[in-house]
């Protein structure tokens, strides 16, 4: 009797059942599955680029020097982002070879511990403006490695181990731990980093160092903290504004690949000027880890009428 009642009750419930008519959030879109978030396409401008020029999808961040035991690797850190710029390869240089573009890259070209320049590739960056590709800067992507041993060794301080399979002009002289014996290996003693570092501030990544700059009130200006050692530019790891009037800057610190950008909405007192002091950090084999302070005087002017 109880079973029969329960079965009857269950049957009644099944007969009275009806769809819940819950609101399907995806019904209006004509599909029952949740939307799949598609990766944003890399919006390369639909611009016909000249031969050799390509749209930049990986942007330079900073030079990276890593050491793992006796192996020191010189590489370049990038970030996958498109800044709307274009680039072309200027020159690919092997270890120690000179290039016509040496000294023109805003991030410089580092040197091995024996003084030879690292291998890598020079790129020239362009922006598309007013119907033409305008060059804006040159960057060096380092790509090299070296083996070193400490001074405690009994072997001569600098020795070149020849290898029959070695080619003197390897296009990409990257030495990995697996195949280091297949090419010349430099056994060098790391010299003490004693080279003085000279701080420099400029308007462009590659332009004349300035100690004073005039800016119009409210107009944004870009300042690049840079550093030179022994007459050659060395990459800046980071910079920080440590003193002075930074104006309306969004950031008062950054990496070497990012400039200081600010504007000043107030004039200095009559006859005065703002002084901005940057603390520039470098860390290269030839300089070691150093910080130097560089200052620039900012004179804010405003268009005015004369009587």
């Amino acid at each position: 009797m109880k079973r029969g009642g329960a079965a009857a009750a269950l049957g009644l419930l099944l007969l009275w059942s009806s769809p819940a008519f819950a609101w399907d959030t995806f019904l209006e879109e004509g599909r029952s599955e949740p939307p799949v978030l598609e990766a944003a396409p890399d919006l390369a401008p639909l611009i016909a680029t000249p031969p050799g020029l390509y749209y930049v999808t990986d942007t330079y961040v900073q030079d990276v020097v890593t050491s793992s035991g006796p192996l020191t690797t010189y590489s370049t850190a990038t970030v996958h982002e498109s800044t709307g710029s274009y680039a072309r390869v200027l020159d690919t240089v092997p270890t120690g070879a000179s290039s016509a573009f040496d000294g023109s890259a805003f991030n410089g070209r580092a040197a091995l511990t024996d003084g030879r320049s690292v291998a890598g590739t020079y790129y020239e960056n362009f922006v598309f403006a007013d119907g033409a590709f305008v060059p804006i800067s040159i960057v060096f992507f380092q790509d090299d490695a070296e083996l070193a041993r400490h001074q405690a060794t009994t072997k001569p301080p600098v020795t070149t181990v020849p290898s029959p399979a070695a080619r003197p002009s390897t296009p990409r002289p990257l030495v990995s731990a697996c195949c280091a014996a297949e090419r010349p290996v430099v056994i060098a003693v790391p010299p003490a980093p004693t080279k003085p570092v000279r701080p420099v501030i400029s308007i462009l990544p590659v332009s004349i160092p300035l100690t004073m700059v005039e800016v119009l009130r409210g107009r944004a200006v870009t300042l690049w903290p840079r550093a030179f050692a022994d007459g050659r530019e060395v990459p800046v790891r980071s910079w920080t504004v440590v003193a002075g009037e930074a104006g309306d800057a969004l950031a008062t610190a950054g990496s070497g690949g990012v400039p200081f950008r600010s504007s000043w909405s107030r004039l200095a007192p009559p006859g005065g000027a703002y002084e901005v002091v940057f603390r520039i950090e470098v860390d290269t084999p030839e300089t070691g880890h150093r910080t130097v302070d560089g200052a620039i005087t900012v004179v804010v002017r405003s268009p005015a009428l004369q009587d």
Partner: protein
Amino acid sequence: MSWIRNDRGSAMVLTLVLAPLLLVALAGVLQLGALRVVAARVRAAADLATLVAVNDQDDAELARSGALRLSWDAAVVAREYFARELASSAPLLDGPADEIAAAADIAAYPSAPAYDTRTGTRYDRPTVRVAADVPVRTPVFGALILRPVTILHVLAVGSPR
């Protein structure tokens, strides 16, 4: 009672004689006021054109020397903006705004110090100078046997300070 009647008559005569004179004086005052308003607008046009041109700086020179220097087309920019601003007062001008601006003596001194041969002034900053003769219609003055067109001399000098 009789002198009152005589007074009424003399008041009418006096009104008939003085009314035209009063109307002429009133029209002259209104025309003079309108001319002053136009003069202020023309002066503001020259000032604005000067400031806009001074605001146009040479970025390459700034990167090279850190110093402000006028852009190579500062005079062109000043003339263009002078014409634009005059166009807002076109009904009051005796000629197209473009032609008036084209005839203006506009000089840009990109670097300092510089000497202005027109005014004999020495400029210690990069300077833009606008000197113009702006013809303005003054029909009431013309009806009063004066000049129907009045020339406004305007001079504006600007520099970053």
